[in-house]
């Protein structure tokens, strides 16, 4: 199968400029400079490149939101906050192929007529930030960043900005606030970042993988990229598989790969010979699937049709014997911990959900607790400034809808039938 990103990742020296160039690196940038920015955007639209951060918004369409008038400088912000539990692909790109990202930034900024780019890397990725910084330094030294890149007349500055430990900063407006030196509170939309973004300037925020896909799209054409996937979801995706599988890791697969194949073929099936109990398909915020639901294409539209999401490409595999209530409790703790606190339903609701699910797991659940959780979910879903509340609600609702008896047993027996263990 043709790969777009990981082709040379096995070579640890690929992160260095000299090796990257040996494999054709920065040829796409040269080709892009000979194109018209509008043409580049067209190729990206033809590629059906859907955002790889989780929301899956078509990148070419997002790029088109920038105002036509060039009087205010525009900026590109790369979202390397990778915080969605189950997701660990951008880390791979940044450590094994940082120049892919930088070349992608160069082409994208040329297309967007942006002369400044900030890469927002989550604070915990200290080593990754250093590797990206080293690659940026190499690029500047080789005239691939900075003034008059490759004699094209195009100037571009790229800066790494480290986050400091907040999942919410993966949301684009929260990220922008964090970049500006503020608390990571999401902003009301409208205005959208394309009109008022970082430092008040028209801004496009894209995920690492989305931008890293761009050089290949320019080299081979948008149509070729699209053909690697399916109709409304072009190209390949980096899919991370974790949990109780034999071969956890990142796999570059067609956007239209079958979810069952991801787990049983690529990731080697369930560990320790166990049976599958549940799959969280696209990062912790996506509705859980039962084993009888996973024979489905992993593309965005198909996942949507069965009531879940491909999200950030993080497949979490839950084996038989794992307690679903305990799993949900882990997740509810996560969302409560990460809620920024700005708006009422999320701030108070995530804390309440955590406490209810926590006491059910500890054997102190009360009659009516499950109905209470579902009612609380209704009061949170769609009521907030950003989707973090929805991200907490979707696992809570889906775990209860699909594994109701486990919750009822915990409450009825006033203990965890699995002995409070996974």
């Amino acid at each position: 199968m043709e790969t777009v990103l990981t082709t040379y990742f096995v070579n640890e020296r690929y992160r260095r400029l000299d090796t990257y160039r040996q494999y054709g690196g920065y040829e796409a940038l040269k080709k892009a400079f000979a194109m018209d920015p509008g043409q580049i955007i067209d190729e990206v639209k033809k590629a059906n490149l859907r955002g790889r951060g989780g929301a899956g918004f078509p990148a070419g369409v997002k790029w088109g939101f920038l105002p036509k008038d060039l009087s205010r400088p525009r900026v590109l912000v790369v979202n390397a906050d990778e915080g969605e539990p189950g997701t660990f692909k951008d880390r791979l790109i940044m450590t094994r192929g940082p120049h892919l990202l930088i070349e992608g930034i160069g082409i994208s900024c040329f297309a967007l007529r942006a002369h400044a780019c900030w890469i927002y890397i989550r604070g915990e990725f200290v080593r990754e930030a250093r590797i990206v910084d080293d690659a940026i330094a190499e690029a500047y030294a080789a005239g691939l960043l900075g003034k008059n890149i490759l004699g094209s007349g195009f100037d571009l500055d790229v800066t790494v900005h480290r986050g400091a430990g907040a999942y919410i900063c993966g949301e684009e407006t929260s990220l922008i606030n964090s970049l500006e030196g503020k608390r990571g509170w999401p902003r009301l939309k409208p205005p959208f970042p394309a009109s008022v973004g970082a430092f008040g300037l028209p801004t496009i925020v894209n995920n690492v993988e989305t931008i890293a896909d761009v050089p290949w799209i320019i080299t081979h054409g948008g149509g070729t990229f699209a053909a690697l996937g399916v109709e409304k979801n072009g190209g390949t995706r980096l899919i991370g598989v974790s949990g109780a599988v034999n071969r956890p890791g990142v796999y570059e697969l067609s956007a239209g790969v079958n979810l069952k194949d991801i787990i049983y073929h690529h990731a080697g099936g369930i560990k320790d010979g166990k049976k599958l109990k549940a799959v969280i398909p696209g990062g912790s915020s996506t509705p859980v699937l039962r084993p009888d639901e996973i024979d489905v294409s992993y593309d965005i539209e198909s996942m949507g049709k069965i009531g879940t999401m491909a999200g950030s490409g993080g497949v979490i595999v839950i084996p038989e014997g794992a307690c679903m209530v305990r799993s949900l409790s882990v997740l509810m703790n996560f969302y409560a911990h990460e809620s920024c606190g700005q708006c009422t339903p999320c701030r108070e609701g995530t804390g309440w959900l955590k406490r209810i699910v926590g006491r059910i797991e500890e054997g102190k659940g009360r009659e009516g607790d499950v109905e209470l959780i579902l009612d609380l979910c209704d009061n949170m879903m769609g009521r907030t400034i950003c989707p973090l509340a929805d991200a907490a609600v979707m696992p809570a609702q889906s775990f209860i809808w699909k594994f109701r008896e486990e919750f009822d047993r915990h409450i009825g027996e006033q203990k965890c039938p699995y002995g409070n263990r996974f």
Partner: protein
Amino acid sequence: MPILTINGMNVDVPQGTTILNAAKEAGVEIPHYCYHPKLSIAGNCRMCLVEIEKFPKLQTACSTVVNDGMVVRTDTEKVRKAVTGVLELMLIHHPIDCPICDQSGECGLQNYYMKFGLHKSRYALEEKVHKKKVQDIGGQIVLDAERCILCSRCVRFLDEVTGTRELHFFNRGDHSEISIFPSRPLDNNYTGNLADICPVGALTSKDFRFKCRVWFLKAFDSICTGCSQGCNVDAHHKGDILYRLKPRWNDAVNQAWMCDFGRLTYKAMNEARLLTPFVREEGARKVAAWGSLLPDVAFRLKAAADKGGTDRVAVIASPQSSNEELYLLRRLATELLGTRNLVFTHRVAGDGFADDFLIQADKNPNSRGARLLGIPDGAAFDALASKIAAGGIDALLVFGNVLGVLSEEETAALLANVPFVAQVGTNEGPVSKAATAVLPSASVAERGGTFTSHVGRVQRFRFGFPARGKAKNPIEILVALGNRLGAGWTFAGEASVFRALAESEAPFAGMSYDSIGMFGQEAKCSK
């Protein structure tokens, strides 16, 4: 101009109006906490969620601008459940402080709970998140972080209005808490406004703490007398005791704010008041009756003028008097007593501090009015003071409680040179201690009239409650004195005096209480 259809009613609003404000035009109240017309839009409380046709999710009315043809509903089951849901979440950690919370009776949570809640708590008491209570954070404010609903009005106020940013959010999630940085308390002159804008009892006034339940208070419109800015205020009282002043909205003067110093000016109306007329005989005070004292004062003033000449009589006016009172006083002095010794001073002890927002250096409410009515100050006051010191004045009529920046000793020394000093004043002070006859005056809460602010804006202050003790409205005092001196005045109250004033005084030409209305009117004068 876009038309909004809200709950079936059409309303035409200016471009850029939000649904929240457009609804108000149509008489529909949309509940909200974080929105404040004078602060930026936050959209975080989520109480103002409404249903908009063609929008899949509920939207916040405070942040959504009306487009022509928009159809909004606030009376559906979906909206009702959403609002009750948000309210429930706001209340789960809220302490049951109502019995001891000053905000009770004017509390946003109480009010909306009665309208949109009325639910039983589903949250366990032992699981409540506790935060720091009863913190003195400086200025006039006490912070109780546990009561806070994190609407961010206070943070926005200190960022956008005062620029001092002493309060901010710390931590995140349901452990978020408003606080000051340790050892960096509130440090600006407008802290009192925080208690006004806080919808709940998180930020409350130190001065008002535990003093009175708000449902016992009545309010009347007044003007702050702390300086010449003329901030519009609501004065709150129970009986004849004032409990607090709150800013009254006037976009032309003080928007929605007032300064901390101004807020406390009500105290002078409660404390150390002159309550009975008295005279000083052989160094001791002797209570007198209005019926005999008024004619006596008129007689003594006239007698001094007849005997030694009009130049031996003097009148010192006060920039704390209303336009109406100053007008009558000027006529008394110039027409009836025939003297040219009529002055006032705007100088007041203190630092004369001013800022570029509301605080003016002149700490009197009506210096401008006095000047527009032709009463001089400055050098003229100094000249008269010299004349008095040299023994050149036999009878003096003084309005006010102090003589400019003179101390008690200096005032006593100066007035010792005048055989007869009659005072019309509100509070005990240097003048009442040295005067021969004291005529107690109603305070600004106990009478009506107008002040002219430093930019020339004429504004009304209203009668609140009857004067304490035997204090009288100064207009009544002036009319009585005037008529004893042959004026033939038939003025019956401040309105009639203002009519006369407007007829004869050029800067006030054409004005009336109607034209002044609720928000004031600018006098015809150069600024």
